[in-house]
């Protein structure tokens, strides 16, 4: 019997939801396990870094790496898996574009550490202790990975062959992607393994999206009882659908919540946030600065809204902390 292709899964700065999405294959996972040999999957199986190091370079067919990259350890593991793998897939929004952890790029490193270790309401730390890179304890020395100055996407750290979008990716897309990579003709490097259409195209409320909109105010989801049948944009709720790749089956809208944009943009768009900013703002009713600003004031957090899943992968990558 010929050797089965080797597959690895790894997580960096992530919540675990991507791992959950693999398990969400349910009984289909048996087919995956039958077709491939899983050689590394820290969340589910007991392999060590040394096991990966023992594999010859390029010996893994595909590594699916989820999570953004924030620490030197994540960098090291990403580089190790890159060397050992013929293909690397950035799995999920965080590896793809930075994801929710990427919102930390609005703050510098010191702000993050100060808040987490000193200022957050549940923290009592009178000694102002911080995790040190090297700590001596009872004659032993322990080291911690370096906490980098910003969050990075996977492709800002290593070359990435394919992207599987979503927070988390939907099981049917993982299944299709594995099928493509294992048996089919692989698509061009750099391809996002999902449909290249806007989310609106598969939205069940598509027919109720008006051709022209004239906003006088916007509502955050908790501020209104949204009509469950009508386009959320038509109800003044900022929905990322027009600037977001489809493939999820409009899950959030089906739950009467606006699209948050986790699938990232289609291949025609470089910067998802700029694109939804353009679509939303151009549809205002006001024509003068005062009126425009008054309407836009009802979007309290443009960066966090438009770049919720993609700040590190955006054109500007992070907030600039110095005066310029």
């Amino acid at each position, binding site marked *: 019997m010929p050797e089965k292709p080797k597959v690895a899964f790894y997580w960096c700065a992530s919540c675990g939801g991507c791992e959950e999405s693999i398990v969400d294959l349910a009984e289909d996972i048996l087919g995956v396990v039958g077709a491939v040999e899983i050689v590394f999957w820290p969340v589910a199986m007991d392999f060590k870094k040394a096991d990966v190091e023992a594999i010859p370079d390029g010996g893994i067919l595909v590594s699916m790496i989820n999570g953004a990259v924030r*620490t*030197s*350890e994540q*960098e*090291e593991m990403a*580089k*190790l898996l890159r060397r050992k793998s013929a293909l690397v897939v950035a799995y999920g929004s965080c590896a793809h574009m930075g994801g929710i952890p990427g919102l930390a790029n*609005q703050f510098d490193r010191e702000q993050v550490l100060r808040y987490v270790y000193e200022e957050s309401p549940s923290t009592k730390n009178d000694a102002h202790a911080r995790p040190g*890179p*090297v700590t001596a304890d009872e004659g032993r020395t322990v*080291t*911690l*990975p*370096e906490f*980098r*100055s*910003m969050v990075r996407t996977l492709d*800002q*750290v290593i070359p990435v062959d394919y992207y599987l979008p979503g927070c988390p990716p939907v099981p049917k897309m993982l299944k299709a992607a594995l099928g493509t990579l294992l048996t089919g003709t692989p698509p061009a490097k750099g391809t996002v393994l999902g449909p290249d259409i806007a989310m609106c195209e598969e939205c069940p409320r598509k027919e109720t999206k008006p051709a022209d909109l004239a906003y006088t105010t916007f509502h955050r989801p908790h501020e209104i009882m949204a009509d469950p049948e009508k386009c959320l944009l038509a109800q003044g709720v900022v929905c990322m659908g027009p600037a977001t790749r489809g493939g999820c089956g409009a899950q959030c809208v089906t739950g009467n919540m606006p699209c948050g944009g986790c699938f990232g943009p289609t291949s025609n*768009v*470089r*910067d998802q*946030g*700029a*694109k939804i*900013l*353009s679509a*939303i*703002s*151009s549809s*205002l009713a*006001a*024509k*003068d*600065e005062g009126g*425009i*600003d008054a309407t*836009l004031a009802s*979007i309290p957090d*443009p*960066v966090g809204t*438009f770049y919720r899943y993609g700040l590190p992968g*955006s*054109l*500007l*990558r*992070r*907030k*600039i*902390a*110095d*005066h*310029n």
Partner: protein
Amino acid sequence: MALAALTKETNGWEPRIVAFFCNWCTYTAADLAGVSRLRHAPNARIIRVMCSGRLDPQFVLEAFARGADGVLVGGCHPGDCHYMEGNYKALRRVRLLQRMMKDMGIHEGRFRLEWISASEGEKVKATINDMVARVRELGPLGMPERFARWDEEMESLARTIARGEEAVHA
């Protein structure tokens, strides 16, 4: 201000301004400034767009990401748009983009919108000179250099790995 003063170098750095001018008003005004032999600072690279409403906010962010120190947008006065409403769309986009760029830490003086009609060659000159002077005061933004500097922190680990040594995270 004399041209000599406007082009005076600041440690070898010269402000780079990317200017998006609409075909029907501001670009025509820039043309008029040219044939009228009005002299303005040479720091603006003018890109003609059919309408200020064609300005995709991505153009502005990409200009900055590729090394612009300032971005100037010129369109027809309110009510004068060749396409009826394009300049209002530009104004709305620019207001939100200005707010968002401020949140991203980019100084508001680096991104500006002006209404300049086809007959206002003088205003093209004054606007460009004023923008160049203001950006000169702010200094270089240097996004490409920032990107390179930000990623330097990954280099020492990369060198350790390249030498085939065990990485020690400390």
